[in-house]
């Protein structure tokens, strides 16, 4: 009994001296995120689809094509029917507003689904492609019915329903957002 007490006292006494590492920001959990990337890995692998399947799924009026690129890129060009919520804007409230039900089928794509490598789909480095955090964030916010485009396409391909700006503007985040099934 005495020995554990002494150990506790020793630890308590030593801790104020341990200046590094600083106490973590209680509002940021990096280890939790790293763990999440592992949890999502295998699931994502089963949710990758080619262009034909993506296009076929998009004809379902309940399906939401979610584009998580920036507003500016979205305005300059996007897949027809897609709705824009930039990744930094993801929050439980915003996603609920745009997506609705957590079982709603969601299709995602990003810059790295295109080989053009010019704005608005300038290529990102492979390990930091936007689809990766988009997929992880959607799962973490409770959306499980996600499919990710797995092909590399061209925005110049006549079969690609690519909407070009400046006529294209960011979709409103209101319930009137296009493609919302109700």
């Amino acid at each position, binding site marked *: 009994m005495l020995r554990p007490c002494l150990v506790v006292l020793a630890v308590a006494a030593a801790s104020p001296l341990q200046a*590094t*590492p*600083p106490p*973590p*920001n*209680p*509002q*940021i*959990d*990096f*280890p*939790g*995120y*790293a763990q*999440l*990337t*592992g949890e999502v*890995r295998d699931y*994502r*692998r089963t949710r*990758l*689809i*080619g262009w034909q399947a993506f296009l076929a799924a998009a004809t379902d009026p309940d399906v939401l094509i979610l584009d*998580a*690129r*920036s*507003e*500016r*890129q979205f305005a300059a060009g996007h897949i027809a029917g897609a709705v824009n919520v*930039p*990744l*930094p*804007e*993801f*929050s*439980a*409230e915003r996603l609920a507003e745009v997506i609705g039900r957590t079982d709603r089928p969601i299709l995602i794509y990003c*810059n*790295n*689904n295109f*080989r053009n490598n010019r704005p608005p789909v*300038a*290529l*990102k*480095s*492979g*390990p*930091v*492609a*936007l*689809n*990766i*955090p988009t997929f*992880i*964030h959607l799962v*973490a*916010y409770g959306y499980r019915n996600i499919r990710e485009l*797995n*092909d*590399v396409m061209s925005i110049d391909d006549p079969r690609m329903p690519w909407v070009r700006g400046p006529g294209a503007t960011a979709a409103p985040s209101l319930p009137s957002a296009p493609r919302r099934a109700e």
Partner: protein
Amino acid sequence: MLRSCLAVLALAAAAPLAAAPVPPANPQIDYAGFRSLAGEVEAYRQTRLVGWQEFAAAARRPRALILDARSAEAYRAGHIRGAVNLPFTDFTAESLARVIGRADRPILIYCNNNFRNDRPPVMLKSVRLALNIQTFINLVGYGYRNVRELNEVVDFDDPRIGWVRG
């Protein structure tokens, strides 16, 4: 000999069917590479967390860059004085080189989850999904390692913060 040839033919015929359930990965997206990068950054980041005093002192040095990776809309509505906005979603090798310049430039980052206000434009995100995590991983992934992250939770109404309202 014949039998082994037949076996090879049978394997070749079966291969496309067996491979069908797992599509070949998009060569432009590297999930395994992302996980390994995140693992590397998790340990490195621990040594790069700074409190507000140190953040503010570092920001006053001439070469320092305060990088705000929130959306353009959120940045316009409010940001720390002197911060430059490059939305996280617009990070590419080219855009970062244009905004940052030299790879060894001291970069200071902060995000919504450095504020206790939890109102626009710094609505609190889920703790595992804080933007600083993504920003830090991306900067290191693109070769910018001289990053320091604000580790304190502050109030944007606190005059020390120098919050610029849109």
